[in-house]
């Protein structure tokens, strides 16, 4: 565990030196938080005609005002979008780290030390997982604080933190970040070009866009049950990915694929 911490610290020290990566990593939670805040404030300040939301009313909880319904709908869409933060940040950091090791051939001297493969991979994964989760939780916390302090009570009731947002942020987000990270470790070790690894990282947003599109196209609203189910599915997927990565990686495998 001590060597895991040593690897993690080295990863972060190097990460801090790469301004482009730091900025691109910070941009995502900033943009997505901004989107949620802007959309929520816009709805709160606009006039919404009852006929516009007639069909939506059927799905919204009874007793909601038209403004509350629109806010309710909007937050449902933005919740999925917000999960891009834990999905993409670890993929960006990890793909950069692994491709960097490949190009600079830095892994052979590391593997010649008594560091265990598990310690090395854990250090690398945590170095990406922790900032992703912190960025998610921090931006969520700030978003909630702004919304709850700026929205009128009528719409603030419907805005985050609601049950589905809380489940998504505290259950789905960590599992998503973990899975995204493990998948990126596996994929990045197979490609040599950093652009390919980053392109893969950007592909991770597709399932999230898929959830948004399903909601829009089918006119359905995904509630807390959906996000709880997603968390369970992700937990199962993460176990499979972890087993795959553990079985696949050994010193020789890393040297051949990363070195």
């Amino acid at each position, binding site marked *: 565990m001590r*060597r895991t911490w*040593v*690897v993690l610290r*080295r990863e972060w*020290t*190097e990460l801090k*030196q*790469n301004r482009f990566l730091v900025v691109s990593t910070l941009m995502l939670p900033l943009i997505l938080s901004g989107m949620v805040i802007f959309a929520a404030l816009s709805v709160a300040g606009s006039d919404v005609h009852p006929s516009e939301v007639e069909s939506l009313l059927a799905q919204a909880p009874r007793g909601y005002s038209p403004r509350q319904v629109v806010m309710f709908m909007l937050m449902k869409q933005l919740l999925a979008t917000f999960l891009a933060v834990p999905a993409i940040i670890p993929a960006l950091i990890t793909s950069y780290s692994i491709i960097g090791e490949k190009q*600079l*051939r*830095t*892994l*052979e*001297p*590391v*593997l*010649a*030390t*008594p*560091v265990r493969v598990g310690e090395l991979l854990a250090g690398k994964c945590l170095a990406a997982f922790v900032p992703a989760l912190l960025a998610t939780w921090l931006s969520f916390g700030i978003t909630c604080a702004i919304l709850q302090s700026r929205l009128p009570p009528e719409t603030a009731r419907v805005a985050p933190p609601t049950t589905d947002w809380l489940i998504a942020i505290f259950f789905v987000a960590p599992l998503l970040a973990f899975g995204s990270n493990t998948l990126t470790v596996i994929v990045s070790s197979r490609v040599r070009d950093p652009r390919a690894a980053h392109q893969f990282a950007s592909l991770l947003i597709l399932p999230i866009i898929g959830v948004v599109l399903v909601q829009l196209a089918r006119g359905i609203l995904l509630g807390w049950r959906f996000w709880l189910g997603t968390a369970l599915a992700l937990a199962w997927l993460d176990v499979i990915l972890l087993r795959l990565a553990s079985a696949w990686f050994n*010193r*020789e495998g890393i*040297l*051949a694929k990363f070195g």
Partner: protein
Amino acid sequence: MTAAIAARGLSKIFGATPAIEGLTLEVARGSAFALLGPNGAGKTTSIRLLTALVEPTTGEAEVCGHRLGRDNDAIRRSCGLLTEVPGLYPRLTALQNLTFFAELQDLSPRVARPRIERWLRRFELWDRRDQPTGGFSTGMKQKLALARALLHEPALLFLDEPTSGLDPESTRTVRELIREQVGEGRTVILCTHHLDEAERLCDRVAFIRGRVLAVETIAHDQPSTRITLAGESAPHAERIAQLDGVRDLHSDGKTLTFRAAEAQHPQIIRALVEAGAEIIYVAPERGSLEALYFKLVVPEPRA
């Protein structure tokens, strides 16, 4: 005392491609040993096998008294490795790079700090300790990588092309360091394309090309000498061969090459003059290892 390396029939086959087969070596502690061979001969794979970086397909070995496969962690603690490419983290400073590796080797800060300072000063990098290594010259990177390999004071040092791409000054620094390490009782395994470097620094060499072709001892105390005559050398060869202390005598056209202690040279020259030979010059033979390399490693061109 056990050997630093005792390998018996080590092989590594990647898929269907053998990288090295039947590697059998014994390297004495406190000696310098060179692995010589062309690119792709299996030198780096041999090093990776002996440093427990890759698992052997067949064979067994003991490295610093530890069994390969069973005591891999102990082997990694006992060995220092200078890889073919320095492999430094370019955004980290020289100090950060060395501290990272010291921590991976479980050196406490109290032990690591003075060692890091000693090596950085020794390699004249102390003033640049807080600069990212990405801006370092090839020589500086190589010296820093050497310092990294030496930080935990390993008993066995593997150096893969340690002077590759270095200027003459840095080359001399590295070679002096290798001599110094052997003088302190460390075992050095040198992978190099510079045959003269192996000849100068090492006690024994192994010629490799997919397998060990031969292991030769370098006689530093009796370097090879060449005498060029005005006429054919063959008629004089037998007489010289009979003199005490003369060995490895070869006659080729007008030249005689042999090994003998320097104190024997006047007697040999006198014997040649008495036999009527006209001596053009006497010179130390350079490149005897080179001749052997081309004989053993480089295949004869097909007719």
